C-alpha cells in the first residue's frame, strides 16, 4: 500500500487580467511512483509544475493548497513565507526544459552545486566539493574535476542537463518534478538522460512528476498518467490501460504518438 | 498614451510653462529690460511678484520673456538634431554597405568627444554667438543618438515581412521608408527627442550661466542665475525662481518622455 506524499487540492492560476491558466486541479502523488503529466503545448503543464511549490512570478494569481508529508500549505501564502518555502524546496527538486537557461551564467558549476550542500545541509565547502565531484561522476559526466570548474555556457546540452539532475539529487529529494527534461535535446541524448533519471529513481526511491507532451515517453517511464487540457485535468489512468480510455481527445493523441513511432 | 499619468503630469507642466511664456505680455505689464535703479533688488512683493534684480528689472517679466528664449532654443535645437539624425540614420540603415560604414564611423568619431566640450569649442569659434547660432550648435552636436536609434530600428524592421512584401510589390525605396518604416520607428525617436529637449534646455542655461550663451540684456533663465551668482547672499529670489523654472521645465519634459516610453512598452 503506497502512501500519498503530495496531495494538491483545487489549484488555480490566473493572469493579472483574470484569465484562467489552471482551474480546479486536484492531484495525488504516491511515494516512489512515477506520475506523468501529459498535455499539448499551452495546456498549462509548466505552470502547474511551478505552482505546486509556489514558484510562480508575482504577476500571476495563485490559489489552492497542497498537503505535503501530512502538512497543509496554502499556496498563495507560501509565496510570501520564505521559511516554509525553503523547507519545502529542500525536499522537492526540479529539473527544467532548457538546462542552459536555468543555470546561472556567471557562476561556475562548483559554485552552483556546492551551494545546495552548504545552505541546505550545512556542510563545509571542502565536504560539499567532494560530494559534488562524486555526484557529477554519478550522473555520468566525464572529466568531472575539469567540468566542476567550468561555466554553464561551456557545457553541451546533455552535460548541462546532467548537471541539473546532479543539483536535483543533491537535495536528496522525496519528489522530483521534471518539466520536459528532454524536449530540447537530441534524440540520442534524450534516451540517455531518461534512462539516467530512471536509474536514479530506482536507486534512491524518490517519486517523479514527469511532465511531457510526448506520449511514447509516458509509457516507457511511468506507471500512472494524468492528462491536462486547457488548464483542466481531463483524464487519469494507469499507463498499462491507456488504450481503454474512451476520451476522443486522448485517443487522437495516442494515435499521433504511434504514427510518429512507426515513422521513426 | 494620453491616459498615462506620468505623461499627463509632464504634459500639464510643460503646457503651463509654455502658455505663460507665450502670453507673457498679458500676464505682466512690466518690460523685462526696463531698468529702474530706484527699484533695485527688492524682495517679492505685491508690486513685483517675484522681486527685482540688481538693475531694478522685474524678475517675473524677465523669467517669462527669458522663458521664451530658453524654450525656443530647446525646441529648435532638438528639431535640428532630429532632422539631421533621422535623415542620416535612415540612409545608413536603409542603404547599408559603404554608406552605412561611413556614416557609422562619422557617428563614432563625433561620440569620442565629451559633448559639452564640443559645444564650448564651437561657441569659442563663433566669436559672438547669436541665438540662432547657439540653436544650431546644440542641434549639430546632438544628432548622433536619434541617428543611431533610427538606424537600429530600420535595420531590424528591414527583416520584417511587411517591408519585404512592400518592396517586392515594386514600391520605391523612398516610399517604403516614408510610409512603412518611419511610422514604426517613430516611437523611440519621440522618447529620445523629448529627453533631448530637456538636455538642450539644460545646455542652453548652462551656457548662459557661464556667460557663453544668451547675452544680456536679453534675458534667459541661465543668465539670470549668472547675475544671481554675483549677488550671492542678498537676493535669494534671483537664485531660486529661475532655477525652479529650469527644474520644472526639464522635469516636465522628462516625465513626458518617460510617459511615452511606458505607453510604448504596454
Amino acid at each position, binding site marked *: 500500500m503506497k502512501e500519498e506524499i503530495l496531495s494538491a487540492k483545487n489549484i488555480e492560476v490566473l493572469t493579472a487580467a483574470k484569465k484562467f491558466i489552471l482551474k480546479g486541479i486536484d492531484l495525488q502523488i504516491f511515494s516512489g511512483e512515477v506520475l506523468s503529466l501529459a498535455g499539448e503545448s499551452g495546456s498549462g503543464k509548466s505552470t502547474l509544475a511551478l505552482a505546486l511549490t509556489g514558484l510562480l512570478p508575482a504577476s500571476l494569481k495563485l490559489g489552492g493548497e497542497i498537503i505535503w508529508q501530512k502538512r497543509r500549505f496554502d499556496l498563495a501564502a507560501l509565496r510570501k513565507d520564505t521559511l516554509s518555502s525553503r523547507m519545502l524546496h529542500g525536499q522537492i527538486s526540479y529539473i527544467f526544459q532548457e538546462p542552459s537557461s536555468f543555470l546561472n551564467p*556567471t557562476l561556475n558549476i562548483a559554485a552552483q552545486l556546492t551551494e545546495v550542500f552548504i545552505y541546505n545541509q550545512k556542510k563545509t565547502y571542502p565536504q560539499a566539493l567532494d560530494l559534488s565531484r562524486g555526484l557529477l561522476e554519478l550522473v555520468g559526466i566525464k572529466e568531472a574535476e575539469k567540468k566542476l570548474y567550468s561555466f554553464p555556457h561551456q557545457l553541451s546540452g546533455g552535460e548541462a542537463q546532467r548537471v541539473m539532475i546532479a543539483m536535483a539529487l543533491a537535495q536528496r529529494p522525496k519528489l522530483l518534478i521534471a518539466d520536459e527534461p528532454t524536449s530540447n535535446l537530441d534524440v540520442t541524448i534524450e534516451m540517455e538522460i531518461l534512462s539516467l533519471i530512471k536509474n536514479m529513481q530506482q536507486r534512491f526511491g524518490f517519486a517523479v512528476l514527469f511532465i511531457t507532451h510526448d506520449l511514447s515517453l509516458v509509457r516507457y517511464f511511468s506507471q500512472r498518467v494524468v492528462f491536462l487540457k486547457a488548464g483542466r485535468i481531463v483524464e487519469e489512468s494507469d499507463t498499462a490501460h491507456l488504450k481503454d480510455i474512451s476520451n476522443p481527445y486522448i485517443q487522437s493523441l495516442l494515435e499521433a504518438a504511434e504514427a510518429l513511432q512507426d515513422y521513426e | 498614451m494620453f491616459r498615462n499619468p506620468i505623461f499627463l503630469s509632464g504634459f500639464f507642466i510643460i503646457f503651463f510653462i509654455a502658455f505663460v511664456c507665450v502670453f507673457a505680455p498679458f500676464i505682466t505689464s512690466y518690460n523685462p529690460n526696463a531698468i529702474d535703479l530706484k527699484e533695485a533688488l527688492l524682495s517679492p512683493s505685491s508690486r513685483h511678484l517675484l522681486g527685482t534684480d540688481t538693475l531694478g528689472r522685474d524678475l517675473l517679466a524677465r523669467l517669462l520673456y527669458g522663458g521664451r528664449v530658453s524654450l525656443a532654443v530647446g525646441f529648435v535645437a532638438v528639431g535640428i538634431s532630429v532632422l539631421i539624425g533621422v535623415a542620416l540614420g535612415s540612409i545608413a540603415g536603409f542603404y547599408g554597405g559603404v554608406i552605412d560604414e561611413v556614416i557609422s564611423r562619422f557617428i563614432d568619431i563625433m561620440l569620442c*568627444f565629451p559633448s*559639452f*566640450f564640443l559645444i564650448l569649442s564651437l561657441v569659442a569659434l563663433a566669436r559672438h554667438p547669436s541665438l540662432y547660432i547657439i540653436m544650431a550648435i546644440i542641434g549639430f552636436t546632438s544628432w548622433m543618438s536619434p541617428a543611431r536609434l533610427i538606424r537600429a530600428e530600420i535595420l531590424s524592421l528591414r527583416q520584417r515581412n511587411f517591408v519585404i512584401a512592400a518592396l517586392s510589390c515594386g514600391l520605391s525605396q523612398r516610399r517604403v521608408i516614408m510610409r512603412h518604416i518611419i511610422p514604426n520607428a517613430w516611437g523611440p525617436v519621440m522618447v529620445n527627442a523629448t529627453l533631448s529637449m530637456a538636455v538642450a534646455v539644460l545646455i542652453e542655461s548652462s551656457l548662459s550661466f557661464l556667460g557663453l550663451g544668451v547675452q544680456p540684456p536679453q534675458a534667459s533663465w541661465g543668465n539670470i542665475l549668472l547675475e544671481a551668482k554675483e549677488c*550671492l547672499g542678498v537676493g535669494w529670489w534671483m537664485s531660486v525662481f529661475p*532655477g525652479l523654472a529650469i527644474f520644472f521645465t526639464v522635469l516636465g519634459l522628462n516625465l513626458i518622455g518617460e510617459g511615452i516610453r511606458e505607453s510604448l512598452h504596454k
Partner: protein
Amino acid sequence: MFNPKVSLEVKAKLTKIYGLDKPLIQQYLDWLRRIVRFDFGVSLLDGRRVIDKIKERIPLTLFINLTSLFIIFLIALPLGIIGALKKGSGLDRAITVFVFVGFSFPSFWLALLLMQALAVHWQIVPVSGLVSVDFPYYSWAGKVWDLARHLVLPIFVSTFGALAGISRYVREEMHTALSSKFIILARAKGLPQRLILLRHALRNALLPVITILGLSVPGLLGGSVIFETIFSLPGMGRLFYEGVMARDYPLIMGLLVIGAVLTLLGNLLADIGYALADPRIRYEAGEK
C-alpha cells in the same frame, strides 16, 4: 583671428611663425604629426606649452570625478537593489521620484543653492577655491582637512546628477535579472533569499552597470566645466572655460583631444571590465 589693428608687418611675422602660409594639406599633416605626440603648441594667453597647462590640471579633475563615481557606485547599488526588490511599493516609488528629481535638477543651480545656504548663510564650508589662504602653514592633517572642506560641495554636486541615472539603471537591471529563469531554479533549490539576491541576481545585473560607469566619463567631464568654474577649482574643466573665454584656440584644441582620449579610455576600461567579469566572454565556449 587677428586683431584688425595689428600692423601688416607683425601680421606677416605671426603668419610665418604659425605656418599659416604653407598649403592647407601641409598644415593639416604637420598638425596631425604634432597631435600624436601631444604637442598642442603654446597657449595664446600666456605662451606656456598647452600640454603643460593641461597636465597640471588633470589630477584634480580626475580625483573629483573618480571619487564621484566611487560614491555613486556605493549609493546606487543599494538603491537599485531595494528598488527592484520592492517594486511598486511606497519605498520604490519614493526612490523613483528621487531619481526623476535628480535627473532634472540643473547642476549649476544646485551648486548655487548649496553655496548660498552652506557657504554664505551658515558658513559651514568655504565658498570657493581649492585651499584656504593659510594652507601652507597647516599641519599635514590640517592640509587634508582643508582640502576636504573645499571639495565637499563640488563632489556632492558632481555625484548628485549622475546618481539618479545610474540608480535607475541598476534597478532595471536587477529587475531583469530577478525575472530570469535561473532565479527560479535558485529558489527551487531552497536557497536563502539574501544569497539569491546578492550572489545570483546581482552578479548578472552588475555586468551592464560596469559598461555604464565607463560610458559616463564624457558626461562627468562636461559637468566638471560647470562646477569647477563655479567653485573656482584649478581643474581641467575650468581651464576649458578660461580657454573659451579668451578664445585660446591651441588650448581649446588640446583640451578637446585630451577629452576625447579620456572618453575613449573610459570606453576601453568599460569593455575590458565587462570582458573580465562575464565568464561567457572570458572563456570561449567549448574551451577551458
